């Protein structure tokens, strides 16, 4: 076969993606290697994170220079990251599908551009502004209304029992993430629903299905591929989000959450909040440990994506095309 320049061109562009990722991961791995050696496997299971005394002379521990009392453990942040992302997706998926169906099929056609614009505006709001709104509105809402309501209805489950929470915590971080993930899933699914061919819709109507049933039972399965793809993208956004979560999560350190309103910290937000202080460590071990956190987050993202793909394969998704 003769060389196909167009195909080669797209291959080169596509190859930039793994290239970028490999560059970043290699950087993280090389940079954090001393920290990996110092922290060992316990890094993942310790709840104590201590930068140590940065103003005293460093000491030699296990052959490496570190500040006195320095100990790095990230179990708190792993739990925070997984919990917030899981809750955010749990809420975001049904809500996004509901909104997408509503705009695509339920709303009058002339309103569709406006309604979809409203949803896309959610993606436009900078993450810092979500944080500001979260502190000003969402946190008091949770403290005064939502948490007591949860306590009243579901209080028999220890996870939902709240005393008098401050509002900063797992729930507020998850809700903020939900708002940031919804537009990604909604916009993608809405786009896909619009592209469903008329004959396919008409076939469902011909069978006597009502409008809602056509949307849920016939069209959604047709765009299954887009839904799964969108959810994975939304998950990526949730795992990597920093600013908004930083401002409403309560910045927990050294303890694990036991209720839905307990303060938490996520890996991404923790890196942001610690980076400045870590730079004051003359041994450099603190920044390297932060790089190790990023590496662990990368590995977790890979694992979560693998699991998502296995679920996908279980749903028999192929090329969602019709002859």
């Amino acid at each position, binding site marked *: 076969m003769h060389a196909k320049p167009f195909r080669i061109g797209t291959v080169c562009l596509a190859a930039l993606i793994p290239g970028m990722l490999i560059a970043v991961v290699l950087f993280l791995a090389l940079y954090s290697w001393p920290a990996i050696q110092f922290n060992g496997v316990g890094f993942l299971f310790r709840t104590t*994170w201590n930068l140590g005394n940065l103003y005293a002379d460093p000491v030699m521990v296990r052959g490496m220079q570190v500040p006195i009392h320095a100990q790095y453990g990230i179990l708190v942040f792993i739990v925070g990251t997984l919990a917030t992302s899981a809750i955010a997706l749990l809420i975001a998926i049904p809500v996004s599908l509901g909104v997408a169906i509503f705009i695509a099929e339920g709303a009058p056609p002339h309103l569709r551009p406006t309604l979809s614009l409203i949803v896309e505006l959610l993606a436009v709001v900078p993450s810092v502004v979500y944080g500001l709104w979260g502190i000003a509105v969402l946190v008091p809402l949770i403290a005064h209304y939502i948490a007591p309501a949860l306590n009243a209805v579901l209080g028999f489950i220890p996870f939902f029992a709240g005393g008098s929470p401050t509002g*900063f915590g797992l729930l507020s971080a998850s809700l903020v993430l939900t708002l940031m993930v919804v537009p990604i899933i909604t916009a993608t699914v809405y786009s896909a629903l619009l592209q469903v061919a008329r004959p396919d819709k008409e076939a469902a109507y011909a069978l006597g299905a009502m409008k809602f049933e056509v949307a849920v039972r016939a069209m959604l399965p047709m765009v299954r591929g887009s839904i799964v793809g969108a959810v994975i993208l939304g998950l990526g956004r949730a795992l990597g989000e920093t600013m908004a979560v930083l401002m409403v999560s309560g910045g927990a*350190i050294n303890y694990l959450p036991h209720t839905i309103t307990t303060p938490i910290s996520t890996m991404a937000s923790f890196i942001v909040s610690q980076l400045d202080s870590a730079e004051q460590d003359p041994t450099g071990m603190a920044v390297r440990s932060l790089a190790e956190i990023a590496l662990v987050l990368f590995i977790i993202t890979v694992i979560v994506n693998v699991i998502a793909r296995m679920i996908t394969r279980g749903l028999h998704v192929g090329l969602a095309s019709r002859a």
Partner: protein
Amino acid sequence: MQTRASETLLRRTFLLGTIGGTTLGLIALDPRQAAAANVTLLETGSSLLYPLFNLWVPKYTAMHPGLRITTQSTGSGTGIAQAVSGVAQIGASDAYMSFGQLKKSPGILNIPLAISAQTVNYNVPGLNDKNLKLSGPVLAGIYGGKITKWNDPEIVKINAGLTLPDHGITPIHRTDGSGDTFIFTQYLSFSTPAWGNGVGYGTTVSWPPVQGGIGAIGNPGMVQACGQTPHSIAYIGVSFHDQIAKAGLGTAPLQNRAGNFVLPTPATVGAAAGALEGKTPPDERISLIYAPGANSYPIINYEYAIVNSKQASPEIAAAVRDFLTWAVDPSGGNAPEFLDAVKFLPLTPKIADLSKRQIAKIG
């Protein structure tokens, strides 16, 4: 039909983009905006010093056309790191560099520019206007999880005459690395040996897990969290006095080294600064926390400019020298018109002199 339409689409987008870009370009290249600068300086670092720099820079650059100074609020650690690496010419920091940092990067100057202080504020319904006294060991107990209720005997002991509620305390700390945490934890460390040997001090510390304790971002975050959470306590920089008043938070008189409980006023802050003026070494690296003296306020500190004594060029060095000399001068940056807006205190004449001597070393 569709293909011609997408070509039209592309052409229209291209046209719109070109028009938009040209307009912006014309605005941006307007000579009034991009003044031809001889020297550009970058200041970055402490968020405590940031407001003051933002008051200084417009005034100073107006007097010196051809000089551009950009200010950034990134944090003391970043300020030090970027001053050392040369990315920034002036690093702002609430903490002086440690021995370890200086050993790694010799030739870096720590130059005090002003004196700032910190308040400990609380939100206890009914008691916000009655100065609830607190001491270092009590605060260490609260933030360490040992003192959990407002009517704990330790707090009652130093507040005879006040009825304290039987309610849990919510200690609020800073999540982001901050000079405020640095000076607060120094106060705890110097006044309470158990804290000093345990958690210690720093721009970030390993806060002991306390039931209900939360972290807030930035000083405004501290004000807001404290204001929204009854029975909470927070440490806030003195520049935010107006916000604290607006939120209706109480200010605690703190116990100083002499055992007296003092509120932060220019007199008490000045007393502390004066007490340690004589002990300040030529390299000006000294903590002003827990100063001796009957009337000294215990949480005050020098705000530092971290500057590399070797700058990239003689012009840049001269620009930095001139700016910093103006900044520490009582008729320049240390004048009330600047410092009052951020509630800082000016350097005492002796310290200003030491700073000027360090500034002269920049070359």
